[in-house]
C-alpha cells in the first residue's frame, strides 16, 4: 500500500478543448490515436492477407492458367488507375501537412481533391468491371466455360496461323471447331473443364480483391468527407490534427494494397506478349 503515492496532479487540471477527459495530455491523446490506427492497419493487413494467401497458393498450383487469365485484364486502365491513386496519396499527404501547419482551408481542399481522385479511380474501375462483365469473365452463374474454351480456341488458332505465316507456308490446319459446347459438357474434355475452373478462380480472386479494395475506398470517402467538413469548420490546429493524420494513414494503406494488386493481377501475364 505504501508503494502507491498519490500525486497532486488530478483530472481537474486545465483542459484543452480537444482533450478527451480520459487523457492527461494532448500528446498522449495523439500517440494513442495514431498507434490505434497503426494497430487497425495491422488487422487490415491480415484481413487482406487471407486473400493474398489464397492467391499465392493458386497462382503456384495453376500458374499457366493464371497467366492466361491475367492477359484478359486491361493493363492500360490498371496503370492509369495506379497513377491516379498515387496522385491521391500525394494530395492526402498535402492535406496532412496543411493540417499540421494550421491551414484549415487547404486541409479541406486537399481532402476533397483526394476524394475526387478516388472517384476517378472507381470510375475507371467501373469501366473495367463492366467490360469484364460483358465478355463473361464474371465468375458465378454467368461464367461460361464454353466462352472460355472458345476464347482459348480462337487464340490458339490465331497463333497457329501466325506461325504458319512466318514459315511462309500457305497451308495450315485448324483443330475442329465445335459450335455448341455447354459448360461442363463432356466434349469440352476434362482438361478443358479444369482450365476453365482455374481461370475462373483467377477472376474470382480478382473480383474479390479489387472489390474489397473498392469497399475500403468507399469507406474512406465517407471518413475523408467528414474530416474535410470539420477541417472547413476549423476543428484542426497544430495542437490537434490526429484525425487528419489517421485518415491519411488509412488512405495510404488503401493505396499500398493497390500497389500490390496491380502487378499481381495485371502484370502477371504481361511477358506472354500481350
Amino acid at each position, binding site marked *: 500500500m505504501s508503494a*502507491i503515492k498519490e500525486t497532486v496532479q*488530478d483530472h481537474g487540471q486545465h483542459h484543452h478543448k480537444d482533450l478527451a477527459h480520459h487523457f492527461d495530455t494532448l500528446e498522449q491523446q495523439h500517440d494513442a490515436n495514431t498507434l490505434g490506427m497503426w494497430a487497425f492497419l495491422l488487422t487490415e493487413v491480415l484481413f487482406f492477407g*487471407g486473400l493474398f494467401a*489464397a492467391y499465392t497458393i493458386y497462382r503456384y*498450383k495453376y500458374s499457366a492458367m493464371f497467366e492466361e487469365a491475367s492477359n484478359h485484364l486491361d493493363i492500360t486502365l490498371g496503370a492509369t488507375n495506379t497513377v491516379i491513386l498515387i496522385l491521391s496519396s500525394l494530395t492526402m499527404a498535402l492535406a496532412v501537412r496543411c493540417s499540421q501547419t494550421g491551414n484549415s482551408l487547404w486541409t479541406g481542399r486537399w481532402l476533397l481533391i483526394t476524394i475526387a481522385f478516388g472517384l476517378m479511380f472507381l470510375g475507371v474501375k467501373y469501366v473495367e468491371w463492366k467490360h469484364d462483365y460483358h465478355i463473361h469473365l464474371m465468375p458465378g452463374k454467368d461464367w461460361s466455360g464454353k466462352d472460355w474454351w472458345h476464347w482459348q480456341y480462337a487464340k490458339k488458332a490465331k497463333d497457329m496461323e501466325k506461325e504458319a505465316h512466318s514459315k511462309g507456308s500457305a497451308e495450315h490446319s485448324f483443330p475442329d471447331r465445335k459450335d455448341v459446347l455447354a459448360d461442363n459438357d463432356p466434349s469440352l474434355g476434362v482438361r478443358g473443364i479444369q482450365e476453365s475452373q482455374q481461370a475462373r*478462380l483467377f477472376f474470382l480472386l480478382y473480383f474479390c480483391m479489387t472489390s474489397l479494395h473498392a469497399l475500403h475506398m468507399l469507406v474512406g470517402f465517407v471518413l475523408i468527407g467528414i474530416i474535410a467538413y470539420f477541417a472547413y469548420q476549423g476543428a484542426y490546429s497544430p495542437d490537434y490534427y490526429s484525425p487528419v493524420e489517421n485518415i491519411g494513414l488509412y488512405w495510404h494503406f488503401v493505396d499500398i494494397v493497390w500497389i500490390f494488386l496491380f502487378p499481381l493481377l495485371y502484370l502477371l501475364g504481361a511477358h506472354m506478349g500481350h
Partner: protein
Amino acid sequence: MATVGLESKTFEKFADVVGHEDDSNYLSHDHSVLSWLFTLDHKRIALLYLVTITLMFLLGGVLAGAIRLELLTPKGDFLTADTYNKAFTAHGIIMLFFFLIPSIPAVLGNFLVPLMIGAKDVAFPRLNLFSYYLYFAGSVIALTALLLGGVDTGWTFYTPFSSTYSNSYVIVMAVGLFVVGFSSILTGLNFIITVHRMRCPGLTWFRLPLFIWGIYATSVVQLLGTPVIAVTLGLLGVERTLGVGIFDPRLGGDPILFQHLFWFYSHPAVYIMILPSLGVTSEVIATFSRKNVFGYHIIAFSSIAIAVFGFIVWAHHMFTTGISPYAAMVFSLLTFSVAIPSGIKVFSWLATMYGGSISFGTPMIYAFGFLGLFTIGGMTGLFLSTLGTDIHLHDTYFIVAHFHYIMVGGAIMGYMAAIHYWWPKMTGRLYSEFWGKLSAGITFIGFNFTFFPQFILGYLGMPRRYYEYPDEFQVLNVFSTAGATILAVGYLMPLVYMPYSFFFGEKANSNPYGGSTLEWTNTTSPPSPHNFEKTPVVTEEPYHYHGKEAAVVSH
C-alpha cells in the same frame, strides 16, 4: 468479514479515497436505462457484456444438455441425426464465439484494464461501446440463424460440406461470426493501445500485474488472428453463393486451404480463451497465498510465448487430413514447444504457493480446480501432438475430452475464479463464501465426472459427432451424462447467489481479499465513475507482500 490489517498512516490516507457516499459510484451515479445503453464507462460496458454472455452461456449449456441426453443411450432416441448435428454445431459456435472468446477479455478485461494501470478509461471509450454493440448484433444474427433452422456443419465449417452440400443456414451464421469477429478485433485493439499509452506514472511494463500481461497477449492474438477467419468466412460465403470453386475440389478449389486459413485463426483462438485465465490464476494465487508471484518476468514472457507459439502450430489440427508428412513433423515439434511456457506457468504458481499463507477463499478453490484441470488438459494435448497417437485419437472423444479440459476446465474455471475474485470490486458486495466454495467443489467434481470418461471412450475408439454408438460404450456415456447434470448444478448455483449478493449481500470494503494491485489499493468498491480520485503513481512491483503485515484474518 474480511479485515485487512494496514499500516495506520496509509489507512488514513486511503480512507479519503474509500470514504465515498454510496451514490457516487459507477453503478449508482445514474440509474436511467439510457445511461446504461449508451455508457462510455468501461466498467458499465463490462457489466453489459457480463449479462449478455451469461445468457449465451445458458443457451450453450442447454444445447450441451441436449447432446448429453441423446448420448445417454446407444440408440438415437431423443434427437434425430440431423437435429443432433445442429445441436452440437450450435453448442460449439455459441460457447466459443459468443461466450469463451469474449468472457474474460470483454467482461473482466474491460472492467480491470484501466483500473489496474491507473487510467480513467480505455483509450477509445466510444470504440469500446461500439464493440459491445457489434457483439450484440453478431449474437442476434447467430440466434436468427439458429431460429431459422440452424447449421449442421460443426463449428469448424469444413468445406466442401459447408460451401456446397449443407442445406442449412451457413451464410447467416457466417455473417454473425464475421460481425462478432470485428467486435473481438476492436476490443483487442483498444486494450493494446490502452496498455501502451494509458499507464499511470511509474507503472513500467515490468510493474504491470500479470493479468494485464495475459490480456495484452490475448489482445495481440485477437488483433492478428481474427481478420483471417473473417476473410475466410467471406470466401466461404462467396463459394456458397456463386457456386465457384475456392475450396470445393470438384470446382477446382482446395479444401485443405480452407483448413489452413480456418485453423490459422481458430488455433490461436484457443489461446484467446486460455491466456486470460492464466493471468487470472497468477493474480488469485498471489493474493490468496500472501506471497509475491514466483518468477514474475518468466510468467509474463511465457504469456507472450504462448501467443507467439499459438500462431505457428495450427496445422496440428490437420495431421490426418492430407498435409505433407514433413509439414506434419514440423508442426508436431512446434506443438510440443507450447508445453514449455505452459509448464513454466504451472510450476511458478506452485512455487508461489510454496511457503505462503494460503487461505481457501472461493476464488482460490476455483483456481485450484483450474490448476488440476488445465494440467490434465495440457498433458493430454501432448498425446495429440504426437503424430502416431494422433492418428488413433483424431476425431474421437479423446479430443473432445482434451479440449473441454482446456476450455471448460481451464478457461471457464479461470473465468469463475475471476468473477468471484473481483465481484466485490464490481458490485461492492460480498457473496456467500459457503455457497461459493460449494459451487466450486461441485463444478470440479461434475466436470471430471463428465469429461474423464470421454478420454477412455476416445481411447476405445468412440468417434465424435455421432448421435448413436455401440452398446459397449454405454456405461461410460451414462457416467458422462450424469456428470454433466452435476456440472450444471455447479454452474447454476452462482446464478442464484451472485445476483442475490448484488442486492442483499454484505457490503464489501475496498480490498476484502488484501490484493496489492491498483484496483484494490486505490479505488473504492465499487469504483467511482472516474476510477481514481487522484492519478496514482507506482513505485514498486505489483506484488509486494514480503515484509508487509497485511493478512486476511477471516472470511
